[in-house]
């Protein structure tokens, strides 16, 4: 009984670390809870409880041990890390990995940076913008303007987000820049369909992942996290819309 507690603490640490990485990288709430419960069960704590919201995780064993809380302040989207943590939890459940190995591996995942280089992301965003412009029945002569505005918009979003910590503000400014640039392209005679260029360029900023996750969480019964993710998605969409709207109100 005496030496049971230290080990329990380490298991809790491990579960919280796994949950923290997953939540920071944009996994669904039910997946985070599922992963933590699975790891705990595999390491000898069958009745653990976890309460996951987008801003924090509470994890407790069904024991006299105190519950532990972890705060999540920064959330990005990094599906590769989610996949990696998922793999670790699978290996722990099947017994291929011990607690120490899993902990070391998770620490390594947490500190590593697997994202694509910034220029590749920007390139991807510009190509996606141009392709969306075509998919929304735009004409081909708007291809290059959409490519450039989408790229510039996404770039300004990334760099503003580094300077200003408020995400909604950087989204607002980024969509404002997109609006201005698109109008300039039209005025210069390089593009013809203002609407299509703007819609295409805005697409990389649209909170598609958030909306999907919010609804999935709501349906799975995670009402608190579903609603808060929904609020985040709504605010993002509102910021983007407002940025474009400001440009239009100057125009008219």
């Amino acid at each position: 009984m005496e030496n049971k507690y230290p080990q329990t603490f380490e298991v809790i640490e491990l579960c919280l670390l796994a949950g923290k990485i997953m939540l920071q990288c944009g996994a669904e709430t039910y997946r985070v809870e599922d992963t933590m419960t699975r790891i705990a069960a595999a390491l000898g704590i069958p009745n653990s409880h976890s309460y996951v919201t987008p801003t924090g995780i509470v994890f407790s064993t069904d024991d006299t041990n105190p519950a532990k809380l972890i705060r999540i302040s920064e959330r990005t989207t990094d599906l590769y890390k989610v996949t990696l943590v998922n793999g670790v939890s699978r290996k722990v459940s099947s017994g291929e990995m011990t607690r120490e190995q899993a902990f070391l591996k998770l620490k390594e995942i947490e500190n590593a940076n697997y994202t694509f280089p910034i220029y590749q992301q920007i390139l991807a965003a510009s190509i996606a913008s141009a392709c969306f412009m075509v998919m929304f029945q735009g004409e081909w002569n708007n291809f290059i303007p959409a490519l450039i505005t989408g790229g510039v918009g996404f770039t300004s979003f990334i760099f503003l987000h580094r300077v200003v910590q408020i995400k909604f503000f950087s989204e607002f400014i980024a969509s404002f820049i997109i609006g201005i640039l698109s109008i300039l392209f039209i005025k210069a005679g390089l593009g013809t369909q203002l609407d299509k260029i703007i819609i295409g360029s805005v697409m990389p900023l649209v909170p598609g992942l958030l909306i999907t996750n919010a609804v999935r969480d709501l349906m799975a019964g995670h009402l608190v996290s579903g609603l808060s993710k929904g609020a985040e998605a709504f605010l993002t969409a509102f910021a983007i819309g407002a940025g474009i709207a400001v440009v239009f109100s100057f125009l008219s």
Partner: protein
Amino acid sequence: MTIIINLMTSFIAAAAFGVIFNAPKKSLLQCGFVGMFGWLIYISLVNHNHDAVLASLIAAIFISAISQVFAKIYRTPIIIFSVAGIIPLVPGGIAYDAMRNFVENDYNMAIQLAARAFMISGAIAVGLVISEVIYQLIMKARLKLKKA
């Protein structure tokens, strides 16, 4: 010809979104495929004069189904594939039109468009959930068969 262009652009766009969301490099092609498939269903339904809400619902069901299969094959979380597939369906264009009408003081039109954007996002979500429920039912049936 337009169908081929649509297929190509949707494939590239979905794969590019995989890059932005940092999906594993190995699964980028599958992301593109899921996006292309979903968009193909959506655009063919819309071109045959079906409502965009219905088209989004059906496309979302199929996207989620393929994502389940891919997630099973490649042993990755389903979210990687479903997100890439959903992105083209998100009613960005309608939401934009609604916002523009709001600014231009045409509130009647704006509310109509906003309601429409809301309906489409709801349809996408319901489609995802329907597909998941069907998958769970199949899984339960299989488990019972194994036990029996």
